[in-house]
């Protein structure tokens, strides 16, 4: 079924581009909170796009069920980890760069 193949390729390419955007963001942004913003969004979206694309490749089987389980877990745990990280950094007194007086 070439149609499903093409859809899954589109998903995987989207996931690759999102992952590269997150990597460039974590490498080049100036401040911890802006890096957190770059990674927290693209990481979850990249994982979601990759896992949907891979599940389309494997078809209906036990493998796609496991991929769906990874998808559900990452979809909840990744924003939770990001929130815990931002909360801990804020409680420990790390100020955003843009919050300082110019």
């Amino acid at each position, binding site marked *: 079924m070439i149609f499903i193949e093409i859809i899954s*390729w589109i998903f*995987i*390419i989207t*996931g*690759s*581009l999102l*992952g*590269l955007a*997150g*990597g*460039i963001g*974590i*490498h080049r942004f100036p401040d*911890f909170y802006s*890096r*957190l913003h770059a*990674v927290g969004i693209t*990481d979850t979206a*990249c*994982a979601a796009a*990759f*896992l949907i694309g*891979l599940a389309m*490749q*494997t078809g209906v*089987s*036990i*493998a796609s069920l*496991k*991929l769906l*389980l*990874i998808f559900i*877990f*990452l979809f909840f*745990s*990744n924003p*939770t*980890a*990001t929130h*815990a*990280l931002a909360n*801990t*950094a804020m*409680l*420990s007194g*790390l100020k955003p760069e843009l919050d300082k007086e110019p």
Partner: protein
Amino acid sequence: MIFSVAAFAILVTISLALARAFMGPTVYDRILAINMVGTKTVLLIAVFAVLSKRTDMIDIALTYALINFIGVVAVLKFVEQGNFYTSGEDD
């Protein structure tokens, strides 16, 4: 073919995150980078499992996703409190 491109993109992303983990000025930058490396490792294992048609390896990716989340939360608790106690029990 498409899986090789995807694996290459994931490896480039892991390299950029590792560079930030080595450079990072604060400890939170390093934890963020390691969290990203863990998520990308899960995706890399899943891509490799589908690429090599050994879909049993997806179990490893599932286990790695669970361990990654617990590890990040545990390291955050350690950095914030200096120990692994629950917040109720002091010293």
